[in-house]
């Protein structure tokens, strides 16, 4: 399954763009997405942390991603 993933903050720098396509085989969980991204972009692992958001909500590791979901990588926030 090919997912389009939005990027913000430093994730945009890491992906060299504000969105990226990710091809997942097997069950498309949040964890599977993270593993795939970290393989392709090892710099992700150097972040203090990062979250995955699905349809504008923070997602859990075991959440399953659907083709039409809006998926985003949320590096450590620093508003305020």
């Amino acid at each position, binding site marked *: 399954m090919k997912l389009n993933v*939005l990027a*913000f*903050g*430093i994730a945009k*720098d890491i992906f060299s763009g504000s969105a990226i396509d990710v091809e997942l085989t097997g069950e498309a969980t949040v964890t599977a997405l993270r593993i795939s991204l970290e393989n392709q972009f090892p710099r992700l692992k*150097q*972040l*203090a942390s990062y979250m995955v*958001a699905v349809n*504008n*909500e*923070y997602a859990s590791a075991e959440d399953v991603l659907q083709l039409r979901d809006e998926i*985003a990588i*949320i*590096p*450590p*926030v*620093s*508003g*305020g």
Partner: protein
Amino acid sequence: MIDIKLTEEPLDISACVEWVMSPECGGIDVFIGTVRNATKGKTVLRLEFEAYEPMALKEMQKIADQTMQKWPVQKILLHHRTGTLAIGEVPVIIAVAAAHRDAAFDACRYIIDTLKQTVPIWKREIFEDGEVWVAAHP
């Protein structure tokens, strides 16, 4: 009543304070963030704020809703800027009106503390010799 806003325009402190004032409320606490001229001794030229807008608005609304449930407050205003800000400009204003001041203080502090943990907004500090996404790395 809750007023949430994410905007590229300068925030209007007077208008924000005016909005929360009401005849039932005796105490208003206002938190105003401003862009500092230095971080850890290094001169900052400007800041850039980026938001994941729909999610940021949703998270800001959640914080305001939770605050309304936790404390007896009448009005909550939460405005955050995006884009490029010069030194001294205001990235965030939080204003809370309550009948009694303790609730206003506690609520205002809860809102800024939680915003900094959960709302998808990112700050980039621009120095003379480079730039850095704040909090990105350990």
